[in-house]
Structures are given as structure tokens and as C-alpha cells.
């Protein structure tokens, strides 16, 4: 399996292997960050995720905080506020107990800050080599906010595309820390919970908030392509509007990476009806998580996702396969 980077390969894995094996129960329209479940007249959202990250600790966060934020954010992308989380560990024999304590403390603090209880958990220890130090598995239950039903298939031509914060910090920080490249001294992961931000956005925009996505693995490019495909639309992005912090830009240039494909853990991209976009953007900027929120582009009726570059060229921003492979002959 070479399907880790969150691009087309993981999409193919899901569509080709996982969904068919799970039968019709799994085949309910577009792939979303969290599933909706209706129970006793209440709209609930349910999400589960497994976290593997090397290194376990990095500037701005660790695997524990990441697991909590990731699941809270997956719920938030369906406009659901977290009600309860579960937390399970697969621990490789030999992991220092101090590390496990530190991860758990961090997860606890993150949950508390997010205002969501961790209601149950599990721990399994496996032999050396059967896991890589520590895997974290979470599940999250959320209650849907009234008045909004964002869905990956909800984007419409003319929608404004909004981005809540700077791109690339998480991916570059983790890569740089793991490989000892030195960029991490100027950088930190952006990992943070986004549900309160979403609450504000829904309050300001209501059902004009058509789609939400947190651009994690595969970065902004993957999120835009996923929404475009699920919604049957195209998108045009303005490169000059993309908030790429200088250290990220410099690191990406040196590493030969495109920041649009680098993972984030603390920002979201929103597709909002044009008449409410300004109101939603203003509401976003009032929150600390999205102080630098910007409009980055517009949904168009069809065609690929396109980036208009600083010099006016229109480059196709397609779904990455996985790693960024050179295409020049």
C-alpha cells in the first residue's frame, strides 16, 4: 500500500476496496468527514479516525492533541458540535511511559479546551514492530447545529471559497521535525479545534454555508478537488490570496513542495453562497482561530480546479496521487 498521503490513492482505496466491502450501508452519497445519524428526532454526527504521526511530539502539538482536534474538526465540518469523544491507544512495547502520560495529558487538555468530555477509552499493547510506538484511535459524537447542512456535495457555482487560516504549517513542521531539516525552529503546527469557528459561521451564514472541509492530508488541493468532484463543479483560486507564511514558502521552495498540497490541522475551507460570503468572512475574522481568514476563490460551473498564478497564468491544481511526483520529462 502506498496510499498514505491523502491524495488520489487513498480516495481509490476507499472507493475501490473499503466502500464495496462494507456494502450498501456505506454507500450513501459523497464521502464526508462525519456521518449523520438521526436518532429520536435529533440530528447527530458520528466520526472516527486513526492517528499515526512521526514524531509523536512536534512544535505546536503532539499526537494526543491532534487526535482530539482532528475528530472535533471532522464533526465540525458537518456543522456538528462535539458531545463526547472516545480515545483508544495501540502502544508498541517499549514506548516510554512518560511519553504515554504526556500524550494523554495533552489529549485531556485539548478535550477540555474544546469543551468535550472523553467518555471512554481502551489501550492495547502490542509487541515490538507490530506498531510504530503509538497509534491513537478516536470516535466522536456530535449534535448538529440547526439551520445549516454543509455537505461535500453542497458547493454551487458562484459560491465564495473562504479559507480560515495560513497554509502548510502543520505538514512542514512535522516533516521538518522528523527529518531534522531545521525549518521547525520558525514554525509550529496549526492544530486547533474549529467547532466554535463553525458555530460562528453558521450563525452568520445559516444554510448559505454550503460545504466545509478541513484540508488535512493532501492539503488544500485535495479538499478543493474532493468538494468539486462531489458537488459536480469547478473552482478558480487566486494564488496571491493564498496565505502562505514566509517560513512555509521558503521551506516548500527548498523541499520542492507545493504548499497547496501540504497538510494542515487547524484551518478549514468553506464554500458559501455569494450574498452571505462577506458576513461569514467578517464573523470568521472575529474569532482567534480565523483572524486571517480570506476569500481565496470562486466556484465555477465546471472544469478542473484552477489556480490563477501571480503572473496571470491558470494552472491546474489537480488531485495529487500521493507524493508530489515530477511531471517534467
Amino acid at each position, binding site marked *: 500500500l502506498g496510499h498514505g498521503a491523502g491524495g*488520489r490513492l487513498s480516495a481509490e482505496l476507499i472507493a475501490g476496496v473499503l466502500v464495496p466491502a462494507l456494502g450498501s450501508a456505506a454507500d450513501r452519497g459523497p464521502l464526508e468527514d462525519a456521518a449523520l445519524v438521526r436518532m429520536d428526532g435529533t440530528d447527530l454526527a458520528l466520526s472516527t479516525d486513526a492517528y499515526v504521526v512521526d514524531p509523536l511530539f512536534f512544535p505546536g502539538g503532539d499526537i494526543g492533541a491532534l487526535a482530539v482536534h482532528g475528530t472535533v474538526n471532522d464533526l465540525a465540518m458537518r456543522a456538528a458540535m462535539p458531545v463526547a469523544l472516545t480515545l483508544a491507544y495501540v502502544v508498541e512495547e517499549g514506548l516510554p511511559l512518560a511519553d504515554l502520560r504526556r500524550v494523554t495529558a495533552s489529549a485531556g487538555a485539548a478535550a477540555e479546551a474544546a469543551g468535550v468530555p472523553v467518555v471512554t477509552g481502551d489501550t492495547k499493547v502490542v509487541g515490538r514492530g507490530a506498531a510504530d510506538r503509538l497509534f491513537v484511535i478516536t470516535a466522536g459524537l456530535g449534535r448538529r447545529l440547526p439551520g445549516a447542512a454543509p455537505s461535500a456535495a453542497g458547493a454551487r457555482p458562484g459560491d465564495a471559497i473562504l479559507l480560515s487560516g495560513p497554509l502548510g504549517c502543520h505538514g512542514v513542521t512535522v*516533516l521538518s521535525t522528523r*527529518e*531534522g*531539516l*531545521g525549518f521547525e525552529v520558525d514554525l509550529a503546527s496549526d492544530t486547533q479545534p474549529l467547532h466554535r469557528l463553525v458555530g460562528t459561521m453558521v450563525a452568520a451564514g445559516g444554510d448559505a454555508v454550503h460545504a466545509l472541509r478541513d484540508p488535512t492530508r493532501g492539503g488544500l488541493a485535495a479538499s478543493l478537488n474532493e468538494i468539486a468532484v462531489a458537488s459536480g463543479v469547478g473552482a478558480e483560486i487566486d494564488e496571491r490570496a493564498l496565505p502562505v507564511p514566509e517560513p512555509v514558502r521558503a521551506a516548500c*521552495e*527548498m*523541499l*520542492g*513542495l507545493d504548499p497547496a498540497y501540504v497538510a494542515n490541522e487547524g484551518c478549514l475551507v468553506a464554500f458559501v453562497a455569494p450574498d452571505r460570503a462577506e458576513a461569514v468572512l467578517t464573523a470568521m475574522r472575529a474569532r482567534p482561530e480565523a483572524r486571517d481568514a480570506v476569500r481565496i476563490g470562486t466556484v465555477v460551473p465546471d*472544469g*478542473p480546479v*484552477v489556480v490563477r498564478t501571480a*503572473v*496571470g*497564468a*491558470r*494552472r*491546474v491544481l*489537480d488531485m*495529487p*496521487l500521493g*507524493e*508530489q*511526483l*515530477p*511531471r*517534467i*520529462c
Partner: protein
Amino acid sequence: MTAVRAPQAWSVRVRGTVQGVGFRPFVHRVATGLRLDGEVRNVGGEVLIRVGGPEQAVARLIEALRAQAPAAARIGEITVTPDGAAPPPGFRVVASADTDLPQGFAGLPADLAICGDCLDELFSPADRRYRYPFINCTACGPRATIIDSLPYDRQRTAMAGFPLCPRCAAEYRDPADRRFHAEPVACPACGPRLTWRAGGRTATGEQALTVAAAAIAVGRIIAVKGLGGYQLVCDATNAAVVDRLRRRKLRPRKPFAVMVADLAAARALARVDPAAAAALGGPERPIVLLPARLGGALAPSVARGLDRIGLFLPTTALHHLLLHDLGRPLVVTSGNRADEPIAIDDAEAADRLAGIADGFLGHDRPIRARYDDSVVQVVAGSARLVRRARGYAPGALTLPVPARKPILAVGAQLKNTFALARAGQALIGPHGGDLADADSLAAFEATVAQLCRLHRCEPEVYAHDLHPDYLSTGYAQRMATPPRRVGVQHHHAHVVSCAAEHGVDGPFLGVAYDGLGFGDDGRFWGGELLLSTYTGFRRLGRFGTAPLPGGQAAVRRPARMALGYLYGGEFPVPPGPVPALLHRMPAAEQALIRRMIERGVHCPPASSAGRFLDAAASLLGVRDDAGYEGEAAILLEAAAHRAGGRPEPLPWRITRIGGLWVYDWSGTLGALLERGAAGESADDLAAAIHRTVIEVTVALCTRAAERTGVRTVCLSGGCLQNRILATGLSDALSAAGLTALLNRQVPAGDGGISYGQAVIAAARLAGDG
């Protein structure tokens, strides 16, 4: 008693490029001159002549078909069969009918440069088309760029909106006239008109031309609506305006093509051998890459640092008039910015070129299809295409194995072309550029749709590259699933494109030297020796690998590639003098790249000949950054041409790894650094490294020939556009008793990939039984 009577009539079938080139009026003229009876018509892609009369006169007609054919015609096979009773008196040209649509693709002719007869009229004050920019006849003029649908008739072209005046109509209807059925025939009274727009000022007709020429003369950049798209034109002798064009077009270093009035003017700027002269003057009228003369009149920034210059002669009457009135060479380059497609629509051109051109010289004949200028170079005595577009596309090539179903081969990512294969032919679409540009991608899809519609060809099978992220691959994946979708390895397609052009029969050795292509093992290849057929291949040998630090970033910056070879290659370079590169390159960058290599961070390895030459170019101080694709290798070749004498090749070794012969370049690079430190010039070492690659290749091919008994070597891939390698390898392989073949009709670079894909897909379909 019955006497055996000699036949009174014959059926003559002519194959080749015989439609849209004035062939039927030509036959009419000759037959009428010989007092023969009969008729001539287009049938399928061929011309059918039914002729009656004295046998001797008929024999002279058939002789003339070859000897006096119009310049743009290419006569293939001529078959003569006896055919019943004598035709009625007189000789007629029969119009083509819809039912005559060919099974292949011959019905859509390429554009033809203005012919000698029209040129004479253009500059004859007494002629009614004196200085008329849209003059043409059956032997010349627009074709593919004006056609709406087939068969090719005026009412189905962009000329439909220009009703013929009585005089033009008479010429169009007169079989004896040079303009009989010249579909785009026009004159000042009835045809298209020039317009000039600059700021708020406008002018039309002759005045538009005068003002436009004056603007060029005072150092302005103007956009000219050419045959297959807008072109940007300026004075090639004015350094300031050439620099301004570079800034505005966002093209800092890539050389510009220069148009000159005639062969004499070309000879003032470059050395023109007979093969090059023929290419320059041919009806396809390509840009020809020529050895530049020192001290020519051109501004140095036209092709800085290069020993070659791309020249071409005027394509249309409009270009002739501009060159004539200005009396100096002109930069004529495609009307676009950087990687965008050439603009063809008036409004689109006005919008996109607004920031580049100071004025627009346009006209009211729409351009129906995008055809950039073609580029050829003369290597090993033949003109070979570097970019196949106007004048060549959408001409068809033969398929060695006929296609059982219609195939669309979608080509590569850069220098994209596509090929449409049906029955025994593959039609190659025009050069379309880098598909990562959204407009190029849209143009690719539109051109595919247009050519499929014109030929009523519904592709049933899609052939594509194995590279998962090529946008052409993505297109094929959207259109079809296996078995209707066929993946073709990049270098297999390269070598097959060459073999198929030559009609090679049976297995052959393929040498594919290029930048990068996706291998069938999921790794990057580019210095490959294959044992190949039209359906499959076996890898026999390769260059040793080295990492690309930063992937595409290493392609853009050969200095990174050099570090890849020094610190992360498959073979350790022996310790020696510190490469000068390490003094030039920022320490922080070196440290980071070494770390990336050590940790394998975004460092895909590749067995590439192109990347190896890039690294050598950087180690020799020739170029650390590529301003355009292949620049370092091009400058390395230019340096090698400057070398004095024949520098000794560098040491090399072939080793055996995983069942493959592998070129171990560590000794080569070690010696390169040693000899450089000892004072040998970069030019001499550039020549030495070319010689080394040639020696290694001959050794690899000789071993493969011994092992397999296969003695034909097809050489392809972008590196074969390097003249030293192409000629050197042909000569050396021939000297070693092998047959060496090079591409001619399709580029050795990625522009030839689509043809290779089409051939392979057709052969595999046939093999499926």
C-alpha cells in the same frame, strides 16, 4: 475471329498527400494538354483518374503525376488498371461528395505556405491581388486552420462568410485556372480585410499594414493574426524591444524564432546547408534550427549563449508584406504568455496580449483551429521535427499494425500531442504545450473533440502514459476503463515512435534517453536500453540512478541534480578535488539538500540520461538553473561544439545489477572533476562527456545485439534532439555493424509519445485476436 483490342481506358489511382494541394486541377491541366478524355475525382483519401486516349499520351500523364506534381503533394503509390470503354470526350474535374469521406484521415490537409506563383502576383503592381495579404491558390494557403467540417469545400470553411466576387467565382469554377476549387480564394473585392488597432486608433486594409510596419520600425511589439494563431512580432535587430518582449511575455531566456524575407537573408544570419534550405523553403514552412553566424545583425538576447538560431521564411502573404516593407529580420513568436496556448480568438487575444502587444494587426477571417509554428532541425542529413504543428499536423502517419478499433492516444504532459488512430493510419494532432496550464488542457480537449468530429471518429480505446499524475492520463481515466484503456510505458512509446516511422519489422533494440518517464516498476526512468516489439518490451539496461532532491525542483535546478549524483547516487563518486559548484552554491542550501538526500526526503531516484547531462552541465559550470526546459543540456551541447579537437572520452564502466546492464557513471564524474581541476576547459569536457555517453551506448547496444541477435537500434527520447548524440550515436552504431534509426516525422521528445502510444495500442488490439 476476334482481334485482341488494346484497352481504350484506364483507371489510375494515386495515393499519398493528394487532396487539398491542387492535385485535381493539376491533373486536369496535364490531361487537357495531352488531349486526353476522362475525369478526376477524390475518392476516400486518394485521387482516382479515369482516362481514355492513346496509350502513349496516357503514359506521359502518369509520368507527369510524379514529375510535375504540385509542391505540397506527396505521391505515394500509383496503380493503373485497364478500365472498360472509352470515356466521353473532354476532361472533367468531379467535385467531392460527402460519401467520399475516407476511412483514414487524408481528407484534412495541413496549411501550405504561399506558393511562388502567388508570391509573384503579390508583388506585381498590375495584378488585381497586388499586395493583397490573403492571396492563395490550390497550391497554397490555409487549410486545417479554416476547416469547419469535411469534405473540404469552401462553404464548410471560415471562408463561408465571404461570398465570391464574379472574377474570383470565375477562377474558382474554371478547371484550367490555378484557383479552380481553391477553397479560400479571395481578392481585395470579396475577401478578408486587415485591421489595425492600437489604443483608440484603428486602420484597415493597406493602411493597417503601413501603420503596423511603422510601429515595428520604431521598436514596438505588435500582435499579428497568423494562420494558426496570433503571433508576437518585433524588430529582431533592436535589443531594447527584444528585451521588452522577454519581460512582457515572461520568457527570460528561451530563444525566439526569427523570420527572414528569403534564403539570402537566412544565409546572412546562419549557415544553411542544402537540406536546411529545402526545409526552410518547403510548403510546411517550419522554423529551422540553424548554426548561427557570428556577428549577425540580430540582437544578442534573441538566442543568448546559443550557437544556434531558429529561422523561418514568411508563411503567408501578410508575413511577406511585413518582411518586405521592413527589410529586416523580425522576431515572430507565438502569441501567448509563458506556457499558455497560442491565442486564436480575437477577443481572447485582445484580452490576453493586451499587456504584451502595443498594437494588433488582425483581420476578419476566423481561425478555426490552433496551429503553432513547427520547428525542425537537420540532423544526420535529414530534417527532423522538433515541434510538429502548422504545415505538418494533422497529417497522418502509417501504423505498422492497423488499428482494429478507433484509438485515441493522449500523449504525455509536456509538449503534448495526441494521436487518433483508425485503420492503417494515425493522425497526429498539433503541438499543444504543457497540460498543467488550464487553457492548454482545455485546448487539448477541444482539439481532440474537433478532430474526432471532423473525421466522425469515435474513439473506442484510449492509450495513455503510465505516469499517474499526467493530466493526459487523468483524461484517459475519465473517458474509459480497461480493457478500453491501455497504459503504455513512456520509453516504450518513445522507441516505438521511431521504429514505426521506419516500418521496422520484428523486434528491435530501443535506446530511450530523456529527462524522466514513469517506469513499469513505479520508478523514474530516462536512460534506457529496451528489447522491444510493437506490443511489449524487456528492459535490458539503464543508466545508474541518482536522486532528484526536491523532485521537480531538481529538474529546474541542475545544481541540485549534481548534488544528487555526488552524494546520493547508485555509485559513489571517488573522492577528488572539491567541485567548484560547492563554492558557488549557498552553504545552507547544500546542507539542506545533503540532509534531504541522506533522509530520502522528496528525493525520487531516476535512471535518467537527461538528468545526468544536467548534472554534468552544472558540475562544469555551464548552467546551475534551467530557465526553460532542457536549457542546461542545450548549453552543454553548445559548449561541446566550441571544443577544440577531439577531447579524450572519460572513463566508464558497465556493471550487472538485477539482470540489467547498468552504466556506472562514477568514474566518468570523478574524472570530469579531476580533469576540470587540472585546467581542462569546460568546453572540452562537455565534448568529452558527449563522447563518453556515445561510447557507453555503443557498448550497451553491442552486448545486447550479441545476446539477442537483434541488430536494429531505434534511438528516441528528448536527448536525441541533441545533435552530437544523435549523429554521434548513428555513426558509432553503424560503425559497430548495427542499424541505427532516428525519428523524423514526429519529435524524438515527448511530442512523439502519442504516435508511439497509438502504434502500441493498435498492435496490442491486433494481438488480442
